[in-house]
């Protein structure tokens, strides 16, 4: 049986420790061990290529959830300049699980909104583990409207296990806030690019998920339900998440097959978490290219295509 991604990553970490040890030996004793180091490095790339070359849906799920992956604000730092964060929904609150602001992509002003997860315990709490609340979706809509007012394109980064389902969020209209965003995003008169950078969790993802282009990072997932939740319903056994991940069609390739996603953005070998700069560069290139294409399209045509793009999604039989 193939090792799980987690087990595999532990083995790689061990290998990396060994490589570092040999390097230290070289430094400390002045002996040339470059042959051995090269061999070990080669072994590492080889293992990464094999394991990450053909990941299953469950592998992708684990990679997408890896807490070391770059989060929205990491990408922002590496791809944009002059990012100015803007807070609050102007109604009741501020949601740390959704960030947004204005920024420059090369020379072009854009508005960025995206889910934000946290790394350490306190930030995770502040970010609500990436489960955005109604305040977050309403803030996102406010900022997207700001962008429209000044005719700046919108970029959305999706990375959420799902929308927040607490009692408070229910009381504040979590359903309505997502529905409203989906509805309004079809009417925004500026180009929108959506990127799933990590976890694309159901309605929580779709709440900032309507655009003229939808991109997915190579090791991200986009799913109607968490595989564990699906397994709990179908087989009454949440532990069978790995099986559910294979049948749910949550990989970038499956999403592309059904026209839900337009482009898969390559990640560095072994995943974005191994090389933030390379991941950011790859994504930045894709954004610049797609934005340039969208700028060629007249607004009316843009809105019509956006409608047609989503209107055509679905598979069914017609005729008795």
């Amino acid at each position, binding site marked *: 049986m193939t090792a799980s991604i987690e087990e595999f990553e532990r083995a790689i970490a061990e290998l990396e420790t060994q490589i570092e040890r040999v390097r230290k030996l070289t430094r400390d004793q002045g002996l040339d061990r470059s042959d051995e180091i090269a061999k070990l490095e080669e072994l590492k790339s080889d293992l990464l290529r094999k394991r990450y070359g053909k990941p299953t849906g469950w592998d992708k799920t684990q990679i997408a959830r890896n807490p070391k992956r770059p989060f929205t604000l990491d990408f922002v730092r590496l791809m944009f300049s002059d990012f100015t964060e803007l807070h609050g929904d102007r109604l009741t609150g501020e949601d740390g699980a959704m960030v947004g602001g204005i920024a420059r992509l090369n020379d072009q002003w854009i508005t960025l909104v995206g889910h934000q997860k946290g790394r350490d315990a306190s930030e995770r709490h502040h970010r609500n583990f990436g489960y955005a609340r109604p305040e977050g979706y309403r803030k996102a809509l406010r900022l997207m409207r700001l962008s429209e007012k000044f005719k700046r394109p919108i970029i959305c980064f999706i990375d959420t296990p799902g*929308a927040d*389902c*607490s*009692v408070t*969020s*229910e*009381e*504040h*209209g*979590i*359903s*309505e806030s*997502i*529905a*409203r965003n*989906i*509805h*309004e995003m*079809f*009417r925004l008169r500026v180009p929108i690019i959506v990127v799933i950078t990590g976890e694309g969790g*159901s*309605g929580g993802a*779709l*709440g900032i*998920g*309507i655009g003229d282009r939808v991109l997915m990072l190579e090791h991200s997932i*986009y*799913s*109607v*339900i968490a595989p564990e939740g*699906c397994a709990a*319903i*179908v087989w009454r056994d949440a532990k069978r998440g790995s099986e559910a991940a294979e*049948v*749910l*069609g*949550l990989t970038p390739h*499956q*999403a592309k097959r*059904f026209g*839900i996603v337009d482009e898969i953005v390559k990640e560095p070998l072994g995943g974005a978490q191994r090389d933030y700069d390379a991941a950011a560069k790859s994504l930045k290139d894709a954004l610049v290219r797609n934005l340039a294409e969208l700028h060629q399209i007249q607004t009316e045509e843009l809105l019509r295509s956006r*409608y047609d793009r*989503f*209107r055509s*999604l*679905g*598979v*069914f*039989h*017609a*005729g*008795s």
Partner: protein
Amino acid sequence: MANGWFGKKRLPGAEVQEAPPSIPDGLWTQCGKCREVLFAREWERNLKVCTKCGHHFRLTAPERIAMLLDEESFVEIDGDLTSANPLNFPGYDDKIRRHGAASGLKDAVVSGHGTLDGYALSVAVTDAHFMRGAMGSVVGERISRAVELATQRRTPVLLISGSGGGARMEEGLLSLMQMAKTSASIARHHDAGLMTIILLTDPSLAGIMASWGSLGDVLLAEPGAQIGFVGERVSQQAHLGKVPQGFQSSEFQLTHGQIDQVVHRKDLRDTLTLLLEFAGAPGVA
């Protein structure tokens, strides 16, 4: 007039899930809420509302349409659409067949056009008796087409939810995309200056509520319906504690400003008529 809605013919699905098997078919029925045994004829005359406690029983989509639209006015459209199994999801084909046979429906929605007190409109009703009313490609497509037809004919559209399942996970991401698709159609309908009315019945949850179920000019709900984002159980798990009394009921949503009005079944037609009149909906001569 109200008494006549169920008068003419017995509708499919009249033996609702709440009837215990020990009682002879069709003569008696038992209230799922207060357990009172009700004389079926009287209960039907009461629009399937418990005569003792006021519990609104779930209706099938055909029953709902018969109750609300003018007699003989309903014309079904897109009745030929049936679910495919795009992901080859294990057991899905079989599930569709079983639910189809048990409910007499092709899928979890019935849609078409008709008149209500003379006002022409499009209507789509989701039905919890078919896979909990979950929104797959067929449900999304038929709702979108019903809305588009209304936009084209410049009539209001009435969308009625009886969907406990939200998304239909057997269709994976395609199911999620139905939220986008239906919302897009409603956005165009709104932009055309036309009315969208949403009626939420028990149950209305998840993907439905995070899309078309929240996008009416006016949102109405039947009393005591479960309406919310995720089921109470999931909310409870997420919260590691009890949820408040009456959480996610129609009345809860009314109190929290999420719906416009809770309307008793017997008053629905009148309320809808007023809204249609307000919208200046063209009547049918």
